[in-house]
């Protein structure tokens, strides 16, 4: 019997996984909205990934794999279940209205003091919108990578992203009116 040996050792796991640490933490904190829970989530993600690393196929997208583990772990956590249950399941069937068109709250965003305003608006987004917006605009993932991470088709990535941006705009506008 010939023994197939993988050139996969925990040395290379560390080399691949640790550079993603800051961004995974940032993403985890956005999902959980709590430092302690974010730390638990990241820790669990690394433990699961290390344990399952031999099943990871080299040459496929490691970043998407790590994010997928983190997100699945979050969704099955108590906070994750609560976050997804209190939000209506997002239907993908809204019209093709552009996310950018309409009045432009963007002009206020040039102002640096409005960073907090934007953060609050992102926080208020339902978790499915929040995560896709962050993966696209903060992590700068391609649609393909987002599709792999969230295990959804590319068409759904586009429509959900569009709806997330529309949701963000309307929240920004609400906040501006309150000011």
């Amino acid at each position, binding site marked *: 019997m010939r023994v197939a040996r993988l050139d996969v050792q*925990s040395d290379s796991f560390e080399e691949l996984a640790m550079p993603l640490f800051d961004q995974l933490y940032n993403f985890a904190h956005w999902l959980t909205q709590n430092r302690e829970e974010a730390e638990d989530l990241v820790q669990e993600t690394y433990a699961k990934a290390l344990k399952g690393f031999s099943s990871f196929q080299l040459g496929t997208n490691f970043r998407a794999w790590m994010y997928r583990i983190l997100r699945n772990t979050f969704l099955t956590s108590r906070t994750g279940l609560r976050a997804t249950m209190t939000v209506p399941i997002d239907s993908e069937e809204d019209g093709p209205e552009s996310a950018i068109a309409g009045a432009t709250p*963007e*002009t206020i965003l040039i102002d640096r003091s409005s960073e907090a305003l934007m953060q609050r608006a992102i926080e208020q987004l339902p978790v499915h919108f929040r995560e896709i917006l962050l993966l696209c605009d903060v992590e700068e993932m391609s649609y393909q990578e987002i599709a792999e991470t969230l295990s959804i088709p590319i068409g759904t990535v586009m429509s959900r992203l569009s709806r997330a941006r529309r949701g963000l705009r309307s929240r920004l506008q609400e906040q501006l009116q309150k000011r």
Partner: protein
Amino acid sequence: MVCESWKGKLELYLDGEMKSDEMRAFDAHVRSCPSCAADVLAGVQMKRAVQVAGKRFVPSNEFRQRVQRSVAAKPRRSVGFSWMAASAVVAIVFVVGLAAAYIGRERVRTQQVYSEVADLHVATLASSSPVDVVSSDRHTVKPWFQGKIPFTFDLPELQNSEFSLLGGRMTYLEQTPGAHLIYELRKHRISVFIFPEEGLRGRFGDSSVTKELSFSVETWSRGGLRYFAIGDAGGGDIDRLAKLFQAVNP
């Protein structure tokens, strides 16, 4: 209207998801259309604002180090050393020291592997949760290892023997992943370790039972895999378990 079809694709453009020829056509259109140019500018600003606001949370150094340690450390001898494990380690160091003084380098390496195997055996039994998969059913334990270790092996049928399977766990020996199975025989615990042969240093033949630090150890090789059976049971018991393994892994 031409603009309407472009506006529908604005997000693809902003996210860099357009094919290059379409991208060039869009660029050309934007230069001649103030309305679309304004939309592009607004979209870019919005994306930029999300990006700035989104990079918000920074992990503490202490937490980073904790995770770094957990992925850097090979998961061996991890959990709470009992006094027994600690004294075994002291004894192992002593034996290894003696061996180094008396015999050649190759022998030392071989001895180190034996010592490490003894160490793994003791440290695991001292741990509060010695096995990761708790089952006496070989059909549960064997599949559990799938995807965790880079090889496969068969477990013997124990129905008519005095041995019982307690469970298994993943382990490491010299950075090589392997399987660790724990059996029970009249309150004695016996470990069977399986590693790919090429990952181990040192020279091993197929030995009969030897004594290492008062443990009985037997080692053999089948199909590119190196097996170690170790425990405080008698040499004859260890040998019987070894024979059961050899019978199903010819």
